[in-house]
Every structure is written in C-alpha cells, then in structure tokens.
C-alpha cells in the first residue's frame, strides 16, 4: 500500500510540473487544447495527492509501523481520534495536509472558472501548480512520508502529548486552510498581472476566497491561543512566540487587503497597493510555513531539525522576484482612477487603517526576525520579549479599533463638520459617559480606561449604524423590529457582516484589556487541608490522588473553591507523565465565567503531598473566545452568497411594457 502512496506523490510531482508548463504554453500560443489539458492535469494532481492522503490515513489506522512517519507519531494505545490527528501531528504529514488543501483549492478554482476569467486561468493554474510543486518536491525528495524503516518496531512512539488535545486536532487544519487559501488570491493577482487584465474584475473574483482564507486563519489563530491557554499552562493565551507571529502576520496584511479592496471596487484607487498586499500576504504565509517547518526557531511546532529551509527560501525569493518584475512592468496600467480629496474622508480612513495594519506587521516581523538576524550578524541570539511587541502593537491596535468605528460612518471624499457631528456625537458621548462610570467604579489603569473608551465608542457606532439602518428599512416597508433587522442584514450582507466582525473585535479587545491590566498571579504552597486566598477566591487543597491510565500516569489534586464563604466549584489540576515519550505535562484546572477565569496549575508536589500551585485570576478572557465566535458569524454573513434578484413579477413586467409603450408613442 505505502508504495502506492509514494508513487502517487511522484506522479503528482511530474503532473504538476506538466500542468504549469502546458498552461503557460497554451496561454502564449493561444491554444485552448493545451489549457484544457492543464486543467485536467490540475484535477489529476488533486486525485493523486488524495490517493496519497488516503494511503497515509490507512497506514495510520492499521498501525503500519513499517512507515517511519507512522511509527514516529502514533502508537497502539492512542485513541482513534488522535491517530487520525497524527496525520498532521508531524512534519511530513502536516506538509502532506498543506499540499492536499492546496490541490483541493486548485481543483475547485479550476472548476469554478471553467467558463469565466479564461484569460487569467492559465496563469492562475501555473501559479497554483508551482506552489504545489514546491511542496511535492519537498515531500518526494526531502521529507517523504512514505519512507520505510529497515527494522519494523512493535509499537510506535506516539503523538507528542502536548498535541493530544481536541483543540490541537482542529487547530492545524484551520491554519492551513487559511495559509493555503491566500494562494488563490495570489494566483489571481499573478494572472491579472501576467495577462494584463488589470481592471477590478480579478479583485471581485477573489473577495470570497480571501474572506474564507482570512476566516480560517483567524479561527486557527484563536484556537491556537486557546490551546496554548489550556494546554501549555503558563497562564496566558498569547506569548508573541515566533510561530504565533508567523500566523498573525499574513492575517494582518490579509485584513488590510480585505479593507483596501473596497476602495478599489468603489473608487478605482489603491490598485498597486492591493496587488502589493496580496503578494505580501502570500509571501508571509509561505514565510510562516517556513518558520514553523524549517527548524530555524525552537518551538513546540518546529519539528526537530529539517532540511527544508533552502527549498522555502529559494521559492520565496523566486516568487517575489517574478511578482515584482510583473508589477513594475504593469505599473502604467495601475494608475488610480481618482485621487484622495481630503484627509478627513472614508478613503483616507481606510488608508490609515492599511498603514496601521502593515505597520503592525512590520513590527511583528522585526521582533520575530531580530533574534535570527542578531545571531547571524553578532553571533549572539538576542531574543525580543513580549514587552517590545506589546509596546509597539498596543497603540497601533487601539488606533485600528478606533478607525473601525470611524471608517463606516465618515463620508466618502470629504467629510463636512456637520457630517462629523451628526455621526460621532452620540457614540462619543456614550463612550465618555460609560468610561466616567468605569472610573468612578474604581478602574484607574490608564491604558485600560483608554481601551475601554475606544471599545465603547466603536460599540456605539455599530449600534448607531444598525439603528439607522433598521429605521430606514421600517420607514420603507414597515414590519417588526426583528424582521427589519433580518431584512437589513440580508440586503447588505457585506456591510452588516463587516459590522458584526467589528463587534467581535471589540469583544476581543475587552478581553485582552481586562486580562492584561488586571491579571493576578500567585504561587501558593499548601498541605492537604490548608487553604489560601487568591483575589476574590478562597482555595482549599483537599488531597492528591495518583491514577494510572494506558498512556500515562497522572497526579491529581482536588481543590475546593469558594468566594466569601460560598462554595463555587471543585477543581482538579493534574500533572501527567506520558510513558512513551517520558514527558511530563500539566493539565490546567479552569473555571470560566464572563467576569474572570480562575486558572490553576499543579506546579509540583513533595512525597509529603505538600503541593505548589500556580494560580492565575484572568479577568474577562471569556470575551476573547466569544468575540472570536462573533467574528466567525459576521464573516459567514459577509461570505454568504447574495440572493439573486428575483424575476420581475407579472405586474412589474406589465408596468414595464406600459412604460415602453408610452415611450414609443412619445417618440
């Protein structure tokens, strides 16, 4: 069986190469037969990689330890759920998944556009297949997942225990769906540049693809944060780890792009900028994959040392050079149709939004690369810690959040002072009043107060937007409040979906502010029966139990939690030792409420059962995850296909005929 998988990958390599070459040749010579053959080759690559995936999955499920990959990431004791997840639990498997998603996307793109964008498609195919070629080359030549062992072990090593978490099962596919998804807009941008079809058509065809990629990447990032929070046991959800940064950077430029395409669609401006953003986003996706896969950084994601670095860097350099050459060649065709008329206008607020996003991206990129650069230049690895990232990104982030309130309300072209007053008076007053209330309630942390004020302002603008929209709808067609709301959203999914996404972002900022400014962290040493107070909570250490499971041995502490004498819950922080990997892990005990999370780690214990607990009180973290869900909801609304205009009713047709008749009589 495994030979079939290996052969399928090798065939896919040659087929992808053929597809790329024949597509370009077909475009050059204007031969439809060649382009059609390239399209079929794309489907062929999809079929072949799917065969390889199925073979690998079969090998994992049947515990075929002849394969080195299967032996290194799974064992017989692992539940089936995690055996399947082991497909992307190691280097080769995760690259196979990356590739499979890419070729699936490619097949969908070819199918969707079989009678559209004919001039662009050969180049789109060539670009997508070149990316597939990179991964196929790495899989066939450097990291073959179907490599066989000389001596077959009786059992495998098993999946890294840190990855044995339901969140980890869905986090990587989500991230890949996002990373890889940006290949489609990039391919269309290349198609537009190469074919010279630079009007706004290509932008329209990729808006939905970009949103899908952006959504998956965002969800992937949040799931990764949640996994880090519940699994890594250091009390936080974001550490500015290079791998986290790698996923954040394309998300930032992707978000900038989603905003700036609106300006191109509506005003015909920022054409060069948009192409640059697409190229940058894709390059950052590849760069992110490089960071996590090449082993240049140490992290839970970087699977040991690997030989992939040169492949990635060569490819990255190649696509950047080609993209820049094409872009420069087409510069004269990419002039704006309109000019910026005023700094106080919706256009310029979008421009600021883009500058902030890209600024954040560069700050993150600099912080991520600095240790690598400093090591290369000075021989000393100077790591950039969280304070740098926080200091730079906090004002930029708050600025962006503020703009998300301003952009939708400010007028196009030039905002008059009347327009400003009319749109911003209520949100500002609302924000000011509630912030004053928060101040009197005892919130004196300056940055937290500023952040809450901005959150309230944006929330106010969103509510105002919905209120005005509903009022207009009801004036037009009457009906109940709920019906007007639904009809409002249905009539303009992009606009209101976008507002809902902004609202999700507000919730996330509320969560980040609360958990950063008011975090309590305390080490508590207790003997069984003793109690201590952390923040508003009293915790009593009842006892420590030892349990032996098939894959691991666990030490579980029981803690009774109360507040002002009232019993709240019982928590069980754990320390585990996985037999196969001889690796200790901590299982966090967590009590979540909208107000605060109580987060307890069993840091250590002595034979006398005296235990050390690391206790965190993280206020408002709940809102981060809820905000994520709201963002998903908003994005789905924005992606959902618009209802096609219904056929005119007989009355309308009749009316039209009457009109035409009248007109004819007149002339």
């Amino acid at each position, binding site marked *: 069986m495994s030979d079939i998988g290996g052969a399928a990958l090798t065939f896919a390599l040659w087929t992808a190469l053929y597809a790329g070459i024949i597509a370009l040749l077909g475009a050059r010579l204007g*031969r439809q037969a060649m382009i059609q053959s390239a399209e079929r080759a794309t489907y062929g690559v999809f079929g072949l990689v799917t065969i390889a995936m199925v073979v690998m999955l079969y090998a994992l499920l049947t515990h075929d330890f002849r394969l080195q990959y299967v032996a290194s990431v799974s064992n017989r004791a692992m539940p089936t759920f995690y055996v399947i997840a082991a497909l992307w639990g190691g280097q080769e498997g995760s690259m196979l998944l990356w590739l499979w998603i890419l070729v699936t996307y490619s097949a969908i793109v070819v199918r969707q556009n079989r009678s559209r964008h004919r001039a662009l498609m050969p180049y789109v195919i060539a670009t997508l297949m070149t990316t597939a070629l990179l991964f196929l080359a790495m899989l066939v030549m450097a990291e073959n997942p179907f490599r066989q062992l000389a001596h077959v072990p009786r059992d495998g090593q098993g999946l890294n225990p840190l990855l044995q978490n339901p969140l980890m099962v869905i986090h990587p596919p989500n991230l890949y769906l996002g990373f890889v998804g940006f290949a489609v807009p990039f391919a269309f941008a290349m198609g537009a540049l190469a074919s010279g079809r630079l009007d706004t058509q290509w932008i329209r065809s990729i808006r939905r693809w970009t949103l899908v990629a952006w959504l998956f990447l965002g969800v992937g990032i949040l799931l990764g944060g949640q996994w880090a929070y519940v699994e890594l046991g250091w009390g936080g959800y974001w550490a500015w780890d290079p791998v986290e940064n790698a996923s954040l950077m394309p998300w930032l430029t992707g978000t900038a792009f989603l905003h700036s395409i609106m300006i191109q669609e509506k005003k015909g401006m920022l054409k060069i900028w948009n192409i640059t953003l697409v190229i940058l986003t894709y390059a950052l996706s590849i760069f992110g994959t490089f960071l996590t896969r090449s082993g240049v950084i140490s992290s839970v994601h970087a699977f040991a040392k690997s030989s992939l670095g040169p492949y990635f860097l060569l490819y990255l350099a190649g696509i950047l050079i080609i993209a820049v050459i094409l872009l420069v060649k087409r510069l004269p065709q990419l002039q704006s149709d309109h000019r910026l008329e005023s700094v106080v206008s919706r256009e310029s607020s979008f421009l600021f939004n883009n500058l902030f996003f890209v600024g954040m991206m560069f700050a993150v990129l600099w912080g991520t690369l600095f240790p690598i650069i400093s090591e290369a230049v000075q021989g000393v690895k100077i790591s950039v810690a969280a304070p740098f990232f926080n200091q730079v990104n906090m004002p930029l982030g708050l600025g962006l959040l503020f703009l998300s309130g301003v952009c939708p309300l400010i007028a196009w072209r030039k905002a008059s002072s009347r327009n400003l007053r009319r749109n911003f008076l209520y949100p500002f007053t609302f924000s000011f009043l509630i912030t004053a209330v928060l101040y009197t309630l005892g919130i004196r942390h300056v940055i937290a107060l500023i952040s809450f004020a901005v959150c309230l302002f944006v929330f106010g603008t969103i509510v105002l937007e919905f209120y*005005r929209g509903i009022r207009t709808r009801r*004036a037009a067609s009457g009906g109940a409040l709920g019906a007007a709301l639904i009809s409002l959203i249905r009539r303009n999914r992009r606009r209101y979906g976008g507002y809902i996404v902004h609202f999700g972002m507000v919730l996330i900022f509320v969560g980040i502010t609360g958990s950063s400014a008011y975090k309590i962290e305390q080490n508590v040493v207790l003997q069984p029966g003793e109690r201590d107070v952390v923040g508003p909570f009293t915790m009593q250490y009842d006892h420590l139990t030892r349990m032996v499971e098939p894959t691991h041995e666990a030490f579980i502490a029981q803690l009774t939690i109360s507040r002002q004498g009232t019993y709240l819950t019982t928590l069980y922080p754990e320390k585990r030792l996985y037999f196969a990997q001889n690796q200790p892990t901590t299982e966090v005990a967590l009590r979540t409420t909208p107000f605060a999370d109580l987060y307890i780690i069993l840091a250590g214990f002595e034979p006398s059962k005296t235990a050390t607990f690391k206790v965190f009180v993280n206020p408002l973290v709940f809102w981060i995850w809820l905000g994520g869900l709201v963002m998903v909801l908003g994005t789905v609304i924005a992606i959902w296909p618009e209802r096609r205009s219904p056929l005119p009713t007989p009355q309308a047709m009749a009316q039209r005929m009457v009109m035409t008749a009248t007109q004819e009589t007149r002339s």
Partner: protein
Amino acid sequence: MMVLDVTVIALIAISLVVYIGEPLLRRIADKSARQEVDDTAERLLLQKEMLYGAIRDLDFDFQTGKVDQQDYAELRQQLEREAVHILRQLDAIDPLVAFDNEVEQQVLALRQRRLAPAGGSGPETCAQCCTLLGHEENFCPSCGQPLRLT
C-alpha cells in the same frame, strides 16, 4: 513490492496519461472572435454590477443620513455617468446584452421606487435615467419619462 501494488500503480499512471493527454488529441477551437466579445461583455457586465452596487450603497448612505444632499447629488451624478458609459459600450457589442440590460435597469429602478420611504420623503429617481426628482414633477426633467403611472 507486491504484484497488486505494481498493477494499481500502472493503472493510475495509464489513466492519468489518457485523461490529461486526451484534449491535446481532440480538435478544440482556439479563441474565436465570439469569445473575445464574451470576455469584453463579461468584464463590462461586472463593472456595471459594481456601479449599481455603488449607487445602491450611496442611496442607502443618503437615506440613513451619512451623506449630505450636495455630496449625494454630485456623487450620484458621477456614478450615473460612469454607468451610462458602460451601458453604451455594452449596447455596442451585443444587442441581446443591451436588452437584458434594459430589463434589469427598469427592474432596479422600480424596486428602488418601491423601497423609497412612504410619504415621498426619500429621494425619488427616474426609472429611465436615474435622475433625482422633485415631488411635483410628472415627467422626468432630464429624459421626459412619464412619472405618475396609475
């Protein structure tokens, strides 16, 4: 390697070559003049759709009070001019598209009129040429279209 594996691999290879090579053996017409027209029509239709979207957005912004009367009139006129330009180009390349266009424009205008707030407080536009109208007019001042059909 087992015989079965070799057979499967050979089968995959053969069907792949046949599947991908087949279009090259067939006679497929290369890009014709007709296709060129289709491409242009597709592009223009898309531009038209975008302009209509922009007009709808602008109307909505005006109705919700985000754009004032002067800016609204100016911007709408500009968008209309662009739309007319596109429609003319469409008319020139294909009479069928032109007809389709006209139907769509009429429907859009009718729907917009139906959407306008009761009591005539919102902007009313001519169904024929989308010019902004006053309340008392019976004919469009721009194109002469009769307005009060009963």
